[in-house]
């Protein structure tokens, strides 16, 4: 039997995602709505042998959406052919904000789709009437089933589920739509096109046809024609409708239902007098960020070492068991080296996502938006850009996706363009390896030298992002309205279930997404570095034996010489040599060139690439990448390849350069054109090249 599709719809902060997690448990998966990168969470559950698919839709205040995120709900509900079109809707409504939350409920009722209202947060409700009494009254006045629940205490969820057994019973019995004669006429004319009787459905088509993809161009033209003959003004009609709806809703929510007090309200008031204080607010925010990045390093060191050792051990075990053949090399030098390179980040990424999720779930993130909105505006951004910029510290991909809450296109575009300049977690391993070559270990008082350079690199990324945003502000004309209008929910202790699911999902998608790229690139790189044009490879062999005889080298020295000659003669060597002239002014040789080229797939490949390049031919596999790199000298000199000047220049390159295929793909998807990812790639590339050039030239002239 087919699964019945149940859409979860509600205002932001109504507890929608909590309910979704309770209903579906571990049976959930995340995909994208077709054509947009808005996440679509679906999950299955069974009830009395009936199968259901729950679909978690983005939070929205009404069917008159402002942002891309909110438009999803209207898109689905106006298209019965949509894969997510519901057989029934669960509308989650916060009992403590009843008046506002009933607006969307009344719109959904008018669409005449089977609907049950879950009256949430009864556990924190303190009114003169009981929650049950409110539910009963609403049920009779609204003509739909209303069930008081608590997603926090997991109360009455069974009753809510049971109501879904017979969805025919959930069909709304009333309607709240009062159409003006003009709008009635429009709805009737449009119904001839849509073949749909429901008046409100047709009215929504009249409002939204321009951005609804499932409406054909011919139909759009016809709808435009119908409307143009009347005095219909889209915005005005939306306001009129909302007014008439509140005229009905407000009396329903009489003084009796208004909560006397809301749990957490006093605490929120007190906390915010400090956290959003004019002076203390920004200082505390900086402190929070500092603690966040400190904990990434403090807590991840041990698990990272464990993972690293595990891979070294696995590598040498495989070598001891398997024959010394090409496939063993491929497995150890290619696959395992690459895989280890990704998995070692898991602790850092988990901690980062965990903290960001906690900030969002607790309600602090919206305070940051409020605090910095005026400052952000000066740089052509929106307060909401803060969410993206903070998330970029973990990964630019979810950051870019989070910009869908910004309704102003230029502000959103600018946020997308500059987010990848904030140092993400993929840069951490590159920084870690290279910083060691720039400054010695040690500290000045409590300040660790290497920690300071690290902070400097992050700061550079932030400055780069803000400066670029300013340039975009000057270059791009912004004539759309921009607004803040942000709900500041009361502070709540995060629900661990929600936090767990969010972090798990984000970490998994990172591992799978980045993992595929890295493994693929590692294997490719291993092949390119191990094989080459046969003439060149033969020449390398002949030269090696000649030198070996001439200088009387022992077996080990000979094999090392052969390895380095072979990598030079390999395809990768040719590639590296080809670009060497361009990167020489930055202080990079062809081997770094190879790592740079492969890093354009994903930055974190750098360490893996270095490992692969320096592992090939080195049978011992005992040295860490860092000590292998430290032993490299420029041919014929005593200058280390990774001298401070080169290393710093390379660091600067990684701060600015757009080296992430996945980010480019997301930018393309979110901006709907190749133009913006191309511009992003180019401007960041120019920043990286110029920055590295200046750094290297300055540094090498000083030293």
């Amino acid at each position: 039997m087919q699964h019945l599709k149940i859409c979860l719809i509600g205002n932001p902060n109504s507890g929608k995602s909590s309910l979704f997690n309770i209903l579906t448990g571990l049976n959930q998966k995340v995909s994208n709505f077709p054509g947009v990168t808005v996440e679509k969470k679906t999950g299955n559950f069974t009830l009395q042998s009936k199968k259901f698919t729950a679909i978690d839709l983005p939070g929205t205040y009404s069917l008159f959406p402002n942002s891309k995120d909110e438009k999803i709900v209207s898109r689905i509900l106006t298209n019965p052919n949509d894969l997510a079109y519901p057989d029934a809707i669960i509308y989650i409504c916060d009992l403590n904000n009843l008046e506002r939350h009933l607006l969307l409920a009344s719109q959904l009722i008018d669409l005449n789709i089977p609907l049950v209202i879950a009256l949430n947060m009864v556990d924190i409700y303190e009114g003169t009437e009981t929650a049950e009494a409110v539910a009963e009254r609403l049920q009779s006045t609204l003509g739909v089933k209303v069930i008081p629940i608590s997603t926090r205490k997991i109360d009455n969820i069974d009753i809510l589920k049971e109501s879904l057994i017979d969805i025919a019973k959930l069909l709304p019995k009333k309607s709240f739509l009062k159409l003006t004669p003009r709008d009635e006429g429009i709805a009737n004319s449009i119904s001839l096109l849509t073949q749909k009787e429901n008046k409100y459905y047709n009215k929504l088509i009249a409002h939204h046809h321009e951005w609804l993809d499932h409406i054909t161009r011919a139909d759009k033209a016809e709808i435009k024609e119908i409307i143009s003959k009347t005095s219909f003004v889209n915005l005005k009609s939306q306001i009129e409708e909302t007014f008439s709806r509140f005229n009905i809703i407000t009396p329903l929510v009489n003084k009796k239902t208004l909560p006397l007090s809301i749990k957490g309200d006093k605490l929120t008031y007190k906390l915010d007098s400090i956290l959003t204080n004019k002076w203390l607010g920004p200082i505390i925010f900086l402190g929070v960020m500092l603690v966040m990045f400190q904990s990434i390093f403090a807590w991840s060191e041990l698990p990272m070492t464990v993972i690293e050792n595990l891979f070294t051990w696995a590598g040498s075990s495989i070598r001891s068991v398997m024959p010394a053949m090409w496939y063993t090399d491929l497995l150890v030098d290619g696959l395992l080296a690459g895989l280890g390179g990704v998995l070692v980040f898991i602790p850092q990424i988990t901690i980062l996502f965990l903290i960001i999720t906690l900030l969002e779930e607790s309600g602090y993130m919206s305070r940051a938006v409020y605090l910095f909105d005026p400052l952000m505006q000066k740089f052509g951004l929106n307060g909401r850009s803060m969410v993206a910029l903070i998330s970029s510290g973990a990964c630019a991909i979810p950051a870019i996706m989070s910009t869908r809450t910004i309704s102003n296109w230029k502000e959103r575009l600018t946020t997308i363009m500059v987010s990848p300049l904030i140092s993400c977690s993929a840069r951490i391993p590159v920084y870690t390896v290279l910083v060691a070559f720039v400054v010695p270990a040690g500290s000045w008082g409590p300040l660790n030298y290497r920690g300071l350079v690290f902070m400097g690199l992050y700061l550079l990324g932030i400055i780069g992002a803000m400066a670029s945003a300013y340039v975009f502000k000057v270059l791009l004309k912004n004539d759309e309205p921009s607004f803040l209008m942000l709900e500041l929910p009361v502070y709540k202790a995060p629900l661990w279930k929600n936090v767990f699911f969010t972090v798990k999902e984000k970490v998994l998608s990172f591992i799978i997404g980045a993992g595929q790229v890295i493994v693929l690139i590692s294997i490719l790189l291993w092949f390119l570095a191990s094989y080459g044009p046969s003439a060149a490879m033969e020449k390398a062999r002949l030269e090696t034996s000649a030198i070996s005889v001439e200088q009387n080298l022992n077996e080990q020295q000979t094999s090392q010489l052969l390895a380095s000659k072979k990598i030079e003669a390999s395809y990768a060597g040719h590639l590296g040599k080809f670009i060497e002239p361009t990167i020489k002014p930055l202080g990079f040789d062809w081997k770094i060139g190879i790592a740079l080229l492969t890093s354009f797939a994903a930055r974190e490949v750098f360490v893996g690439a270095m490992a692969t390049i320096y592992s090939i031919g080195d049978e011992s596999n005992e040295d860490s990448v860092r000590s292998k790199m430290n032993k490299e000298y420029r041919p014929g000199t005593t200058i280390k390849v990774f001298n401070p000047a080169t290393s710093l220049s390379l660091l600067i390159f990684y701060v600015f350069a757009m080296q992430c295929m996945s980010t480019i793909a997301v930018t393309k998807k979110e901006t709907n054109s190749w133009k913006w990812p191309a511009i992003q790639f180019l401007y960041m590339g120019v920043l990286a090249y110029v920055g590295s050039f200046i750094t290297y030239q300055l540094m090498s002239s000083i030293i």
Partner: protein
Amino acid sequence: MRLSEVNIGRKVKIVSIDENILTHKLMTLGFLENTTLTIIRKSPFGGSFYVRVENQYVALRKTELESIKVIDY
């Protein structure tokens, strides 16, 4: 008077909201006729405001305050 002219801490009641692009969104956030509100504080870099409407908190910009007409409660 306009909400943008109201001092911090003064309790006022909404009379009407100008009809413009912001109206609908303001209404969905609880800015309805006859509801009471207070501006609680101003943001660090000026320009945005921390407002209490009925029993909830909302952040608004100065331009957004301007479209709301209020009287003393």
